[in-house]
């Protein structure tokens, strides 16, 4: 029904446009040709402008950051004297790794289980709608709200103080929708025949999921996890609000005192970059940190492209997507953001 209305609407619109153009310009073919050239030229320009902007930004950061970034002293020495601008970024790299481990360890099991529930179990009822509504909304909340939540709930209410644990848990909530979405898409791409053949063998639902569905959805799920690792690396607002900005000591992973995991306040690379960039005498160091961040993002991107999106063997071809002649994956609305 909707479809027909749409079609008819198009016809009338086209009619109007043609009438208008023929009345105004009197069947002037050259003016139509001119309009065509200008319009297509502008579209072409806007497409390539986006590429140019990306290359310019990356090139600019690399130009000023590369010399510093690839020195042993910068990557593997601790920051000195509690100042922003001296020493290396060893503690920040460690904090970033801890944060990734911590937040993925929380978000991946919960996210994948949620995806399994939504794709395999969920009945059409109000509870399922509520869950979907919540995920939809969590995905749209800006990170600073997660930061405020982390501050009020984890830091103050649960008394974690400013710590990587508080920041990591808030970040885990932030990446939850990403993992749920990608995992659910991967699970839905598993053919129904697999499920039916497994169930026909007299195997129960959990065994089917564990032995049949999860293995064939694994590459897609890994894609989601890589995507969210990228989000964790780039996150800064949440961590400034919930993890603080200490750089005085090497962060601990476990501790004997109250928040038993990740108890220290620490800066990840992104937060460190923020402090470096906003203090004027550390600008060159900020570029170096930026290079490290961009390299991590690029690395994740290439690893992600190397594995197919929904089915097959993970990491089959270790070549970036734009170099391989694979047919494009049909676009889905929810996969890209």
């Amino acid at each position, binding site marked *: 029904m909707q479809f027909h209305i749409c079609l008819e609407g198009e016809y009338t619109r086209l009619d109007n446009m043609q009438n208008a153009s023929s009345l105004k310009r009197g069947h002037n073919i050259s003016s139509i040709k001119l309009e065509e050239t200008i319009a297509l030229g502008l579209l072409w320009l806007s497409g390539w402008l986006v590429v140019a902007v990306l290359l310019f930004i990356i090139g600019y950061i690399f130009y000023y950051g590369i010399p510093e970034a690839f020195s042993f002293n910068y990557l593997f020495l601790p920051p000195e004297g509690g100042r922003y601008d001296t020493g290396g970024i060893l503690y920040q790299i460690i904090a970033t790794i801890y944060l990734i481990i911590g937040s993925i360890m929380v978000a991946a099991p919960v996210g994948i289980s949620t995806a399994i529930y939504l794709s395999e179990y969920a009945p059409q009822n109000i509870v399922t709608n509520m869950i979907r509504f919540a995920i939809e909304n969590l995905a749209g909340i800006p990170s600073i709200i997660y930061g405020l939540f982390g501050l009020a709930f984890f830091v103050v209410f649960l008394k974690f103080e400013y710590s990587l644990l508080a920041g990591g848990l808030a970040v885990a909530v932030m990446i939850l929708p990403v993992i749920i979405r990608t995992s659910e898409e991967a699970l839905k791409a598993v053919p129904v025949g697999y499920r039916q053949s497994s169930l026909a063998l007299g195997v129960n639902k959990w065994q089917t999921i564990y032995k049949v569905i999860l293995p064939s959805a694994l590459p897609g799920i890994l894609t989601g996890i890589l995507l969210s690792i990228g989000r964790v690396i780039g996150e*800064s607002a949440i961590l400034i609000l919930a993890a603080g900005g200490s750089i005085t000591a090497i962060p601990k992973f476990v501790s004997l005192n109250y928040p038993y995991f990740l108890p220290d306040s620490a800066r990840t690379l992104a937060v460190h970059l923020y402090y470096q960039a906003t203090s004027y005498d550390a600008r060159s160091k900020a570029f170096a940190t930026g290079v490290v961040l961009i390299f991590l993002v690029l690395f*994740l991107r290439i690893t992600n492209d190397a594995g197919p999106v929904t089915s097959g063997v993970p990491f089959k071809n270790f070549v970036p997507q734009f170099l391989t002649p694979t047919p494009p994956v049909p*676009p889905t609305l929810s996969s890209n953001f």
Partner: protein
Amino acid sequence: MNKYLTQKSNRFWTDFVNNLMANIFFLSAFIAVVSLFLITAYVFYNGAKLFTVIAMPDFLFGFDWEPVNQKLFGILPMIVSSFYVTFGSLLISIPLGIGCAIFLAEIASQPVQRIVRPAVQLLAGIPSVVYGLFGLALVVPLIQQFADVAGLSILAAIIILSIMILPTIISISEDSIRAVPKEVKESSIALGTTKWQTIFGAVLPASTSGIITAVVLALGRAFGEAMAVKMVIGNTQTMPSFSPESLFGLLSLARTLTTNIIGDIEYAEAGPHQDALFATGAILFIFIIVTNAISYMFRRRIHEIR
């Protein structure tokens, strides 16, 4: 007999695990609901505590933010500059983004798409602080040079934000342009239209709701972006001056709702000041909920057309 018994106990355990896992999956799924509830509750509860100290209108429509000395918590300048920055960046990125989406969906050949699309995805993956650094190191000095002002300005924030929200606009618009039924395009071409006339007259109108979704989502992203904006906008708590000398506010320093939180949280003490920051977050949250709802409405319409 013995064999039968072990089978039966196995059966019991497999059934038990099966049911247990079903419950675990449901509970995990419910964590999303609990998180959303907790986030809403904590932000709004902490924000509401402010209104025991000052009245709501003084907060929303107050011109002055002097939280430490005078206990004045007016966020009107921040609301104004938030909207200014958001719509300013949309003004740049809507034409560019939709143009790029059309280019990707209708014009570019396969090899070209394989260059442009990863570029767009990478643009989305670059951390916001890197954009902030870029703005601080290049855009701000440029503005400083050309206009003889501080450089940190609304204009710098608009430029940086418009780059940051491009990927959102491009990817969602492209999806909706691709989702236009082939018949619409073919019937337009059959009328003897040129490629541009088909795009403008048939493809774009048919994908309007998708493009509006993209724009609304991008609006939400721009409104909620904190770090990059904080680095280039200067963060002064005064109303941006809309005088012609400062290009109607473009060149004046400002503070948005998000940068208010980031900037003040480092020294805010527990009490009205911190509550005011939570209240700022709550206002931001309300706006984001509204944009989410609008984009959700339009997204449902796309699915219906499909």
